[in-house]
């Protein structure tokens, strides 16, 4: 089946990201396709390239990157939820006159329309909330 995940919990603040990643690996192991992960609400913090967790903790950001590389999963981040929380890519940073950015591909800032689209085109859309 074609799966999409919605992640609405911040990394290291809540279990949501850990659970979403575990579910992602489980469904891939079962032969399903994980096409999209959509980050919304505090879940947008998962997209930060600047996260530096202690070495004895799982690196959630790197885990998402590996998922995108190995499965071709699209990592979509709601642009409105991201910008108001200080999460921005290079283009938006320039547009808003910001001195730095913390979102890079494969994470992609996008609109809520992509979330609606995912709910229509995927067989399953599973939400992970705090």
């Amino acid at each position, binding site marked *: 089946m074609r799966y999409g995940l919605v992640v609405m919990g911040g990394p290291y603040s809540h279990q949501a990201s850990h659970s979403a990643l575990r579910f992602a690996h489980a469904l891939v192991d079962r032969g399903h396709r994980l096409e999209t992960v959509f980050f919304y609400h505090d879940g947008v913090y998962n997209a930060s390239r600047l996260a530096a967790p202690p070495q004895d903790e799982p690196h959630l950001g790197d885990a998402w990157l590996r998922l995108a590389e190995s499965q071709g999963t699209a990592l979509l981040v709601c642009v409105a939820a991201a910008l108001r929380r200080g999460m921005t890519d290079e283009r938006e940073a320039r547009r808003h006159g910001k001195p730095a950015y913390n979102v890079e591909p494969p994470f992609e800032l996008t609109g809520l*329309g992509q979330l609606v689209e995912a*709910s229509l085109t995927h067989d399953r859309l599973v*939400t992970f909330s705090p």
Partner: protein
Amino acid sequence: MDDPQTMLVVLRHAPHDSSWLREGLDVALVAAALGQDVTLLFLGDGVEALRSGQQAGPLGQKGSHTTLDMLAMYDIEDIRVDAASLAARGLTVAELDWPVTPVTSDVLPGLFATSASVFNF
């Protein structure tokens, strides 16, 4: 965009305390703008959003009433409110500023089961 499906957006948080309500309503509006049939369900503390006189928060939080006023413009007309949540907070449908349909908890499982997608906020 594919054929319209029924999308259920469940709002379970009061305004001001968090961005759950506002970001939930944003999903409903975008889905409606893209031609989906959206049903809103106010549940638990979410019913506080419908209380008359809710303004922008004193700490500068944006109020949600202006967004709720836009629902009709986006053709979101199926607005349901959990009757028990209302009663528990001393509210009646007549006091609310929007035309809502009260529902009892026994119909909620059916509402969730028949919606093509469910978003919980």
